[in-house]
C-alpha cells in the first residue's frame, strides 16, 4: 500500500530525516515509535508532502508521490491527521467535516457524517458546535473524522493519544481497531508504548531521523534491549 525508501529531509541545514524506509501493507496498522524530536512527525509530513523530501521514494497505491503537492497526495487517498489537531475552530462540526469531504473510493464504504457519528458518538451530539468550543478529546475525534470524510485508503495518524486523558485514550484505541476492521491501512506515530501495542500489527523505531529497528509487535515485546536502547522504558 505505502512503501517509503531512502527518504531524507532537511530543516534549513539540519538533517532531520536520513534514509528512512518503511512499509504499510493493505489493512495493516504500523506504528512509528520514537522520542520527541526523533523524526516521527517529520516522516509523516514528508510522506504527505508538507515537508519537501530532499531525496527518496514514496510509493503509494502503485504510484510515486514524492515531490507532489499535499492536495494531490490527499486526492490519491492518503489521509493525514496532524499531531496538534488543527481543527477549524471557527467552523461547526458539520462544516469541519464538509472541508474534508471527497468523492467515494472504489472498494471502500463511503464515509458520511452519520457513519462517523456512529463511530464517535460524542460528535453526533454537537453537530453545530464551533470547533473552538470542544474539549481536547472531542477535537482529536473530529480531526480523525474530518480526514475520514475524504474516504482515504490509508491514514497517517500523528500521536493520537498525546495529551488525552486515559479514558479518552481507551476510546481512541477502540476507534482505531474499528477502522482497521473496515479495511483501512494506518500508519501511526506514538510515544506511548502501551497504546501502540494495543492497536498495531508492526512497529518501526526511529531515532535521530534514522530507522533503527523494524518488526512485529510480538518481537518488540520480546526484544528488551531494543526497547531499553531506543524507547527507554
Amino acid at each position, binding site marked *: 500500500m505505502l512503501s517509503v525508501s531512502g527518504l531524507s529531509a532537511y530543516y534549513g541545514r*539540519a538533517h532531520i530525516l536520513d534514509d528512512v524506509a518503511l512499509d504499510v501493507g493493505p489493512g495493516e496498522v504500523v506504528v512509528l515509535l520514537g*522520542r*520527541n*524530536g*526523533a523524526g516521527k512527525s517529520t516522516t509523516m509530513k514528508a510522506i504527505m508532502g508538507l515537508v519537501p523530501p530532499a531525496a527518496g521514494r514514496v510509493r503509494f497505491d502503485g504510484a510515486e508521490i514524492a515531490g507532489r503537492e499535499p492536495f494531490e497526495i490527499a486526492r490519491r487517498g492518503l489521509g493525514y491527521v496532524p499531531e496538534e489537531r488543527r481543527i477549524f475552530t471557527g467552523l461547526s462540526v458539520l462544516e469541519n467535516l464538509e472541508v474534508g469531504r471527497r468523492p467515494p473510493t472504489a472498494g471502500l464504504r463511503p464515509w458520511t457524517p452519520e457513519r462517523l457519528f456512529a463511530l464517535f458518538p460524542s460528535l453526533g451530539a454537537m453537530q453545530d458546535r464551533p470547533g473552538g468550543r470542544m*474539549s*481536547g*478529546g472531542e477535537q482529536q475525534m473530529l480531526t480523525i473524522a474530518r480526514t475520514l470524510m475524504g474516504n482515504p485508503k490509508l491514514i497517517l495518524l500523528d500521536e493520537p*493519544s*498525546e*495529551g*488525552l*486523558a*486515559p*479514558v*479518552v*485514550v*481507551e476510546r481512541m*484505541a477502540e476507534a482505531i481497531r474499528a477502522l482497521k476492521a473496515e479495511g483501512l491501512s494506518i500508519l501511526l506515530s506514538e*510515544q*506511548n508504548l*502501551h*497504546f501502540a501495542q*494495543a492497536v498495531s500489527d508492526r512497529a518501526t523505531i526511529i531515532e535521530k531521523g534514522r530507522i533503527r529497528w523494524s518488526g512485529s509487535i510480538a518481537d518488540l515485546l520480546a526484544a528488551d534491549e531494543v526497547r531499553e536502547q531506543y*524507547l*527507554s*522504558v
Partner: protein
Amino acid sequence: MATLEVAGLEKSFGGVRAVQGISFSVRPGEMLALIGPNGAGKSTCFNMLNGQLRPDAGSVRLLGREITGMAPRTIWRLGVGRTFQITATFGSMTVLENVQMALLSHHRRLGGLWRPVARMDAAPARALLERLGMAEQAARPCGILAYGDLKRVELAIALANQPKLLLMDEPTAGMAPQERVSLMALTAQIARESGIAVLFTEHDMDVVFGHADRILVLDRGRLIAEGAPAAVRADPKVREVYLGSGAVTGAH
C-alpha cells in the same frame, strides 16, 4: 505553614462553571499533582493561581499573604515560578541569556540602556544551568533547542528568583519516557532541597504516580478525589471518569 492555600475558588465562562469551589493547600517541598479529564478545569485553576485569570470568588494565599487577582508579574515577584504546557522561552536569545533575563528582572535591572547584557548576571545564570545539567547548551539559541532541553531551560528560568512555589503545567508533555523521569526526579530533588512547593498538572500516569506525593482529581470543575497516589488509583470514581481500565496508558 502551607506555602499555598486555596479556598473556595470559582470561575465561570459565559454561564459555564469551569471551576466550582475548589480548596486545597501545598506544603513546602511537596509535589502535588492536579489531574483530570480535558476540560475539567485544570488550566483555568492554574491560570487563577498565577494571576492570568481573576477568580469570580475564593481566595489564593501564598505564605499566608492574599494574592488573589494580582497581576502575573506581581505574583512572580512574590515567589511563584511557572513553566508552561507549550514551552515559552525567548527564541532569539541563547539559553544563558534566557536565564540572565529572569535574574536581571529579579534584580530589577531591566531599565539599563548602556551596559551590555553579556556582562550582567552571567555567573549566577551559568550556575543555575549547571544545576539543571544544561551548562553545555548555554550558548545555543533557544529557538533551535530540542523540546526536552527547552523544558529544562524553563525550569532554570522558573528557579531564577528563588521561588517558594512552582506551578508546572504538564511539565513532561512531548518528552521521551526517560527524559520525563529524569526531569521530574530533578524537580523533586530541587523541591525537597530548597523547600519549594510544586503543583503540577500531567497526563502521563507514570509521571503522576511515580513522582507525586499527593494527587488532586478534578472533574467538571469539582474536586472529586484527593489523597496519596495508591488511594487515588484505587478510587472507583476516579477510574470511571479519568483513569479507565489502565490497559493502554500504564495507569494500572
